[in-house]
């Protein structure tokens, strides 16, 4: 069976660091940055990118709609 791999893109400056994506990610891909963005928020980022399966859970739960998801079979 082909393995499904995903990748996300977070619009860092629009992220408000709410962590909702992080707790919704089934694979633990996402963590919060240690530095704040220019608005003062610790933004989300794919800390463990290799774990991402492109399920889009993070994106559809993000209140600010700042995550784009890509997915492919390999």
């Amino acid at each position, binding site marked *: 069976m082909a393995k499904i791999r995903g990748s*996300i*893109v977070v619009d*860092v400056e629009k992220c408000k660091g709410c962590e909702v994506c992080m707790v919704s990610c089934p694979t633990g891909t996402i963590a919060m940055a240690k530095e704040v963005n220019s608005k003062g928020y610790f933004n989300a980022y*794919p800390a463990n990118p290799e774990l991402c399966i*492109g399920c*889009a859970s993070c994106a559809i*739960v993000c209140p*600010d709609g700042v995550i784009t998801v890509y997915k492919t079979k390999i």
Partner: protein
Amino acid sequence: MKEATGIKEIIKPENLAYQRTEVLVDNTLSYCPGCGHGTTHRILAELIEELGLQSTTIGVSPVGCSVLLYHYLDVDIQQAAHGRAPAVATAIKRLLPDSFVFTYQGDGDLAAIGTSETIHACNRGENILIIFVNNGIYGMTGGQMAPTTIPGMKSSTSPFGRDVKTMGNPLKMTDIVATLDGTYYVTRQSVHTPANVRRAKKAMRKAIEYQKLNRGTCFVEIVSNCPSGWKMTPVESNKWMEANMFPYYPLGDLKVPSEEKGK
């Protein structure tokens, strides 16, 4: 755009799995971090795009945190006086019967000052969609008690917790409108987890389709959070909502069209 990206090779147009809809204008939402208003906006915007409704949609925004809805959705929108969105929408729909008309209202707006307009629009069976974001508080004005604030819950006007003896019982408007002859589809959803977002979107899609068929009023409650008003982190607020709001406002359909029941 400053981006934080995962594995670069996968990021190709042909692999695109999820992207923000263009009906959501590229403005930063004014909502607090983690606020469910944003998610609710987005699923509505996605449906407008998916169902090809941009050119026929007329929305009505309330007075409340979502007053600026018109900054975010790329459709024609009227901003209504506090509580009066259902009256505004009534006239729009009757005068432009081929359009898709929705209101988007908070719990203060819909269940306090707008009680009468809500009940009468629903009772007349106006062919509109009412989206009711119930976060149990007046977010916009700084976290005062709403009609939907649950017993014991603290707010800036119930600093010792809502005391039902003096402040009254929470009002379940969705339950009331479900009893009215004019409503066709009444449901209660949430948008705090991916699964709930999917369900809420499905429910809203149904409601939109019923409006095309002129079935009467559809009413979608979104039980939501207000991290700022509740003085919690977004993630805490979602947990608190599950533990405290859902027992009071259980998710699910309250009124399902009989034609659908068999399905």
